[in-house]
C-alpha cells in the first residue's frame, strides 16, 4: 500500500508495543480537551512516529482541563510527560455566559473573568509541570447567534469573541514557555463548515470531522516535535524562474516578471516569505547559473525586489553545477548539508541534487505559480519552538564573518588572532540563557563531543543542581558579537569532574575559543573541588572533527572506561591574546531566586 494511512499505522504500533512491556518511550504526550478528543490520537501518534519518535499518548477524560491544571498526576497518572496539550472551546466551558454576550456587554466582562481563571489554572500547571505545555486558542464559537453569516454586520458575537480571544492570547503570552496552539487559525484554514461535524457533536460531544481531526493531530505533532527537532538552517535559492519570472540573461532587467501583477506578484510574495524566514534566523543563499553582474543588477536595481544583497548570506553565481554551489555554500556557512533546503524550478537540477546530495531537502517551484508564495510555509522545515536573538541576527553575524575571513587572508594566523581582540565570557547559565543553550544542545552536530540532547527543563534542573555546572560561552571580537556559542555541562562524581556535554558553534573555531573554553572548564572544575576532568568522545557520523580534541589538550586515554582524563594540576591554559572572563558566582544567586518561586 502506498497511501498514507495514519490510523492503521497507529493501530499497528499500539499492537507492537503491547508485545514489548519494557519499551522505552521518548515522547510521552498527554492530550486533554473541553470536548471529546480521542480521534486526534492516531493522527498525533502517526505524525510523531514519522518523526522517528517512540511516542506514548495519554488521552485525558473529556472536560478535565482544570483538574489537570491543578493536579495533573491525579488525572493523567503518575510518570513523566514530555508534553501536555490542552484544547478548549468557549462554548464547552462557558456556554451560558457566552450566549449572554450576544445581547449584554456586561456579560463580556464576566466571561473575561472566567477565562482569566482558566489562564490562572494554566499558570499553576506551568509551575508544576516541567515539560512542553501547549494550550489552544479558543476557536470561533459554533453556537446559535454566532453563525458566520451574521458576521457581515460586525455582530456582538464577533466583537465578544475578539475581545476574549485577544485577552486569552495576552494572558498566555505572559506565562513563560507556554506554547499557544492556534486552534482558531486551524479552523479558519479548514473552513468552519468542512471542519465541523454536527452529528458527532450532538451524539458524542466531538465537534470535528475526521479530516479536521487529522489536521489538529498533525499540527500538534509538529508542535511537540519542534521542541526537539532542529529546523533547517538555510534556503538555497535558484534565481531565474524562482525568485523572479523569466531569465535575466535573456529578458533583461525590464523583461523579467516581478511586481504587483501576476505572475510577478507570486514571485514577489515568495520573496516576502523568504524575508520572513530570514527574520526567524534562516539563512538565505543563492545558487544560480548566470553572469554574476546580470544577477546582481536585479538585486541592486529592480524596484520590485523584496530581497536585497545584504539579505543573502552566500552568493554562488557562476556556471558550475548546483551540486558544487550547494556544497560550497554549506562549507562557507559551516552547516551540514542536512540543514539545507534547495529551491529550483528545473526538475533536472532538483533531480541531480537529490541524487548526489541526498541529505539536502529539495523543493521544486510548483507548476501552478499561485502556490509559490506558500511553498515553504506548507513544509515542516522551519518549525521553530522558540526564536532567539541570535537567530534574528544570524545573517548580520555571517556578514561580519565574511569580513573576518577576508582579513585573515592578508595576515599570518598569529597576527590575525591577535588583531581580532577576542573577548570571551564563560559563565554559569542563568534562566535567561536557557532557551539558547537548549537550542545549541539540540542542534549542534559537528563540534559536539557527546551529542547528548536535552530539553530546556533538564538543562534548567542541571543549572541549579549542587553537583553540576551548566556553562555558557559568549564571544565578541572587533567585528561583532557572536552571542552565546558554546555550552558545557560538568558533573561532579567524587573527585572527578565529568565533562558531560561540550559543544561549540563551528563559526567560532580556530581562534583560540576551544583552548579558552577548555582552560575555563578546568578552572570551573576546581571550584567543584575536583582533582581531575574526565571526558568522553562519542562518535556520530557528524562529529569526527572533535575526535582528537582531548588528545590535543593532553588528556590521557583510559581504554577501560573509554574516557579521556586530565589532572587539573596540568590542565590547559588560556591563550595569551584572549581577553577572558569566568563568572561562576552568579550560580548561587540563580539557584536562590529559582527556589523562591
Amino acid at each position, binding site marked *: 500500500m502506498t497511501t498514507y494511512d495514519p490510523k492503521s499505522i497507529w493501530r499497528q504500533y499500539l499492537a507492537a508495543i503491547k508485545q514489548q512491556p519494557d519499551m522505552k518511550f521518548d515522547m510521552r504526550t498527554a492530550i486533554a480537551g473541553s470536548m471529546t478528543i480521542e480521534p486526534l490520537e492516531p493522527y498525533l501518534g502517526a505524525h510523531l512516529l514519522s518523526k522517528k519518535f517512540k511516542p506514548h499518548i495519554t488521552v485525558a477524560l473529556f472536560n478535565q482541563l482544570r483538574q489537570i491544571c491543578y493536579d495533573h498526576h491525579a488525572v493523567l497518572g503518575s510518570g513523566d510527560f514530555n508534553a501536555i496539550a490542552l484544547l478548549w472551546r468557549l462554548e464547552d466551558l462557558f456556554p451560558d455566559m457566552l450566549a449572554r454576550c450576544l445581547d449584554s456587554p456586561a456579560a463580556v466582562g464576566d466571561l473575561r473573568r472566567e477565562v482569566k481563571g482558566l489562564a490562572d489554572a494554566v499558570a499553576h500547571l506551568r509551575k508544576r509541570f516541567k515539560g512542553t505545555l501547549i494550550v489552544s486558542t479558543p476557536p470561533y464559537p459554533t453556537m446559535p447567534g454566532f453563525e458566520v453569516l451574521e458576521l457581515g454586520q460586525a455582530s456582538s458575537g464577533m466583537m465578544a469573541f475578539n475581545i476574549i480571544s485577544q485577552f486569552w492570547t495576552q494572558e498566555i503570552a505572559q506565562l513563560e514557555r507556554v506554547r499557544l496552539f492556534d486552534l482558531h487559525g486551524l479552523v479558519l484554514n479548514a473552513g468552519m463548515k468542512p471542519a465541523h461535524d454536527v452529528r458527532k457533536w*450532538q*451524539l*458524542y460531544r*466531538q465537534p470535528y470531522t*475526521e479530516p479536521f481531526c487529522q489536521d489538529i493531530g498533525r499540527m500538534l505533532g509538529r508542535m511537540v516535535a519542534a521542541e526537539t527537532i532542529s529546523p533547517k538552517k538555510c534556503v538555497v535559492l535558484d534565481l531565474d524562474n524562482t525568485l523572479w519570472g523569466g531569465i535575466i540573461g535573456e529578458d533583461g532587467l525590464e523583461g523579467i516578471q516581478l511586481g504587483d501583477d501576476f505572475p510577478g506578484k507570486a514571485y514577489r510574495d515568495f520573496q516576502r516569505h523568504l524575508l520572513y524566514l530570514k527574520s526567524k534566523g534562516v539563512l538565505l543563499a543563492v545558487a544560480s547559473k548566470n553572469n554574476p553582474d546580470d544577477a546582481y543588477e536585479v538585486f541592486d536595481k529592480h524596484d520590485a525586489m523584496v530581497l536585497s544583497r545584504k539579505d543573502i548570506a552566500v552568493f554562488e553565481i557562476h556556471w558550475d553545477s548546483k551540486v558544487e554551489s550547494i556544497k560550497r555554500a554549506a562549507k562557507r556557512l559551516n552547516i551540514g548539508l542536512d540543514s539545507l533546503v534547495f529551491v529550483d524550478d528545473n526538475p533536472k537540477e532538483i533531480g541531480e541534487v537529490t541524487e548526489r546530495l541526498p541529505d539536502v531537502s529539495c523543493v521544486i517551484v510548483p507548476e501552478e505559480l499561485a502556490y509559490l508564495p506558500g511553498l515553504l510555509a506548507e513544509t515542516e522545515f522551519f518549525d521553530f519552538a522558540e526564536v532567539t536573538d541570535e537567530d534574528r541576527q544570524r545573517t548580520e553575524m555571517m556578514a561580519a564573518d565574511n569580513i573576518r575571513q577576508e582579513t585573515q587572508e592578508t595576515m599570518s594566523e598569529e597576527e590575525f588572532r591577535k588583531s581580532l581582540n577576542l573577548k570571551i565570557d564563560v559563565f554559569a547559565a542563568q534562566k535567561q540563557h536557557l532557551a539558547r543553550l537548549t537550542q545549541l544542545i539540540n542542534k549542534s552536530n559537528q563540534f559536539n563531543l557527546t551529542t547528548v540532547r536535552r530539553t530546556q527543563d533538564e538543562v534548567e534542573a542541571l543549572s541549579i543542581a549542587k553537583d553540576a555546572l551548566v556553562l555558557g560561552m559568549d564571544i565578541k571580537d572587533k567585528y561583532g558579537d557572536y552571542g552565546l556559542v558554546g555550552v558545557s555541562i560538568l558533573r561532579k562524581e567524587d573527585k572527578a569532574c565529568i565533562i558531560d556535554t561540550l559543544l561549540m558553534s563551528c563559526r567560532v573555531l580556530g581562534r583560540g575559543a576551544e583552548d579558552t573554553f577548555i582552560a575555563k572548564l578546568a578552572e570551573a572544575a576546581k571550584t567543584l573541588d575536583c582533582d581531575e576532568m574526565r571526558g568522553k568522545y562519542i562518535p556520530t557520523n557528524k562529529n569526527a572533527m572533535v575526535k582528537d580534541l582531548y588528545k590535543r589538550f593532553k588528556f590521557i586515554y583510559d581504554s577501560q572506561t573509554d574516557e579521556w582524563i586530565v589532572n587539573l594540576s596540568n590542565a590547559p591554559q588560556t591563550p595569551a591574546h584572549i581577553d577572558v572572563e569566568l563568572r561562576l558566582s552568579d550560580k548561587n544567586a540563580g539557584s536562590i531566586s529559582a527556589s523562591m518561586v
Partner: protein
Amino acid sequence: MSDPLIQLFSEVLQVDAAELSEDSSPDNLMQWDSLAAMSLVVAIEEKFRVQLSTKEIMKMSTIGLARKTLQTKKVMI
C-alpha cells in the same frame, strides 16, 4: 472470506471476529462504549462510503441492525 462488517467491528473494537455475532451490542460487548461507537461510525462511513444520519446511527444498536441500516442505503453486505 470473512464478512466485511464483522471484520470492521473486530478491527475497531479490538475483539476477535469469532466472538462477534449479529446480536453483538453495547450491552453484551464491554469494548463497545460510546467512544468506540464514534470510531465505528467513522470507520463505517469511510469503508462503505456512506453518510449516516443521527437517526440511522441511533438505530445501529447491534451488528445485525447496523447491517440492515447499511442495506437500506444500498451497501451490499
